[in-house]
């Protein structure tokens, strides 16, 4: 039985059996791993609160036929600041859904691990602008997964789309994976127009480090729409991941507004 050690970020934790939990971890060395933590729900479990969702941990596990079994854990970063704030936690939930939708396979990609770590770090450090972090994360993850959206030119005719543009606005066609000039908009029935400034905002999100992600408030909705549509159109992950990713920027509404 092979024993291995890796760094991982806990994406999900579901109850299993009497007192166990099944965890989905995005690991540095083995991509997405499912592992069981035995007895973790007991109050005297040696794991305690070390394997809560979003925690970045150093863990030791042995491989099983279907599930690996976690035997030792050390917390590297608990990201409790993200978990203890509803808006941050909701944003992190959306990022986790996008990871499951786009990078659901077991192929290891350290860049995905690093991106998720830095996104959670940025989310914990900021007091606002969570939408920008979510959008930047989804776009960067799409790029790492090989679904780079084309934002500098029309995907059909190659016409440059550097803003500010004269006349009609450019369009975004999710199934074609990029922007369309007004003349080519009929190429996709799903294409939708982009308000001025959206393309530049998207380009900045792809180019700049995630800690510098910033989108003007007036563009947040259009940027979120492009990002969710792009992820959904190219997500190879299963239905649950797609459904969660589809929720895009929708945060929790108050049930009884003040």
């Amino acid at each position, binding site marked *: 039985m092979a024993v291995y050690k890796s760094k991982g970020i806990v994406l999900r*934790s*579901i109850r299993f059996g009497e007192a166990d939990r099944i965890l989905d971890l995005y690991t540095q060395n083995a991509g997405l791993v499912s592992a069981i933590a035995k007895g973790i729900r007991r109050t005297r479990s*040696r794991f305690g609160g070390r394997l809560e969702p979003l925690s970045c941990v150093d863990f030791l596990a042995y491989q099983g036929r279907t599930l690996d079994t976690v035997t030792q854990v050390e917390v590297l970063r608990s990201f409790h600041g993200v978990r203890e704030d*509803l808006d941050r936690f909701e944003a*992190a939930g959306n990022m986790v859904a996008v990871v499951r939708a786009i990078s659901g396979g077991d192929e290891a990609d350290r860049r995905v691990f690093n991106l998720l770590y830095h996104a959670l770090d940025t989310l914990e450090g900021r007091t606002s602008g969570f939408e920008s972090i979510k959008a930047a994360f989804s776009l960067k993850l799409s790029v790492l997964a090989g679904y780079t959206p084309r934002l500098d030119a029309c995907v059909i005719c190659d016409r440059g789309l550097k803003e500010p543009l004269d006349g009609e606005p450019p369009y975004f066609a999710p199934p074609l994976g990029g922007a369309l000039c007004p003349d080519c908009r009929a190429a996709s029935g799903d294409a939708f127009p982009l308000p001025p400034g959206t393309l530049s905002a998207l380009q900045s999100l792809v180019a700049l480090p995630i800690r510098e992600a910033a989108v003007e408030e007036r563009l947040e909705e259009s940027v979120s729409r492009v990002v969710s549509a792009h992820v959904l159109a190219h997500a190879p992950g299963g239905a649950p991941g797609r459904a969660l990713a589809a929720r895009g920027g929708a945060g929790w509404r108050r*049930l*009884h507004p003040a």
Partner: protein
Amino acid sequence: MASYARPVERLITELSKLPSIGPKSAQRIAFHVVRGKPDDARALAEALREVKERIHPCKRCFNLTEAEECDICTDPRRDPSVICAVEDPYDIGPIERTGEYRGLYHVLGGALSPLDGVEPEDLRIAELVERVGREETKEIVVATNPNTTGEATALFIAQELQDRPVRVTALASGLPVGGDLEYADEVTLGRAFAGRREI
């Protein structure tokens, strides 16, 4: 070809659908029933039938009950000004066994989890807020599980009730009695320090 007679296979299949029961356990339980006394099997069948036919959620707190309202809601000795919000009906038992709590309950039906798509509308949070307005509640004790989803639920409930004249409290977290400090994790130990008390 099936290994066993059709009724035995059917029993194994039905038992396998239960949580934590794999095919081997299902087979073991099925053969225990086959070998056991007919009266024991009938009593089990009757208990299953009865629980499905007679048990339903209390219309006030959503605990499981045979009547319209559960025994706790109808007990005149309970303090109606305090409501303890729990995730599931089976969380009520351990709290009752402490003998420390004499208020009422509210079963939320789970915990918020953006990681699994469980949203406020999926829980009975709106019903809790309505109860607070209707029943002149003075305190809500949020006793969700001390994990990420339970704490997100507690935060959401506090946010929902922030404009109401009601005190919202949560259970303390810290070290389990009888444990060793050496094995405590950083988060639990940190909380225990934050919630330290005078002795």
